[in-house]
């Protein structure tokens, strides 16, 4: 299960909407070993694409150095699908490189259809992706402390 603060979900949704129709991506870091996501880190999608995302390689190194310095881990890796459901694509599964992370997907496919004005229009789902095996998990959204 992924337990995550409502403010962090709001941050992810805002980022996904801002970058729509391109995919948005980023990390929510947290203390190493804690399983608690605390620090929202939106990343640039270097691919600037509606069907692909990739962190810029220099940004990636800076991100991992910073997390290391702060004794943090990427607890959540998020990205948006802008025309399809919030379920890992074949590419997502093939490239998943953090077996300990929660892969959070949001879908903004209903954006621009005259709806998309409330958070309930954005589908949010979370998965573990380990060795090519996808396991969906419940998302518990908790109020900000």
């Amino acid at each position, binding site marked *: 299960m992924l337990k995550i603060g409502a403010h962090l979900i709001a941050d992810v949704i805002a980022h996904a909407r801002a970058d729509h129709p391109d995919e948005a*991506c980023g*990390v929510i870091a947290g203390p190493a070993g804690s399983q608690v996501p605390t620090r929202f880190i939106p*990343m640039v999608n270097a*691919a600037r694409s509606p*069907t*692909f*995302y*990739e*962190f810029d*390689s*220099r940004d*990636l*190194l800076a991100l*991992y150095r910073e997390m290391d310095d702060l004794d943090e881990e990427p607890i959540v*890796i998020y*990205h948006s699908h802008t025309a399809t459901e919030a379920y*890992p*694509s*074949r*590419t*997502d599964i093939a*490239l*998943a*490189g*953090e*077996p*300990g992370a929660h892969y959070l997907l949001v879908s903004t496919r209903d954006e621009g259809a005259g709806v998309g004005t409330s958070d309930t229009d954005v589908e949010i789902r979370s998965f573990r992706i380990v060795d090519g095996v996808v396991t969906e998990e419940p998302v518990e959204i908790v109020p900000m402390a």
Partner: protein
Amino acid sequence: MSIEVRIPTILRPYTDGAKQVEATGDTLAAVIADLDARHVGLRDRLVEDGALRRFINVYLNDEDVRFLGGIDTPVADGDSITILPAVAGG
């Protein structure tokens, strides 16, 4: 001659869980060959058809080796190599 190599979580099964290992070599290719001799199978996760895999990032000190000489990038004693899988998908 010793080069420090930082190993990402997903490849730590090859290094008995170590986050950082030492290797020797005067190019990235030689360092990877040395790593593979000590941690069998690692090379295949990094290299395909003689070049670095597209979705594996390797940094020499602060620079992505794609902007240096790729797998033929020269390395020297005291350099630090960081391996990170791309964070990417579709």
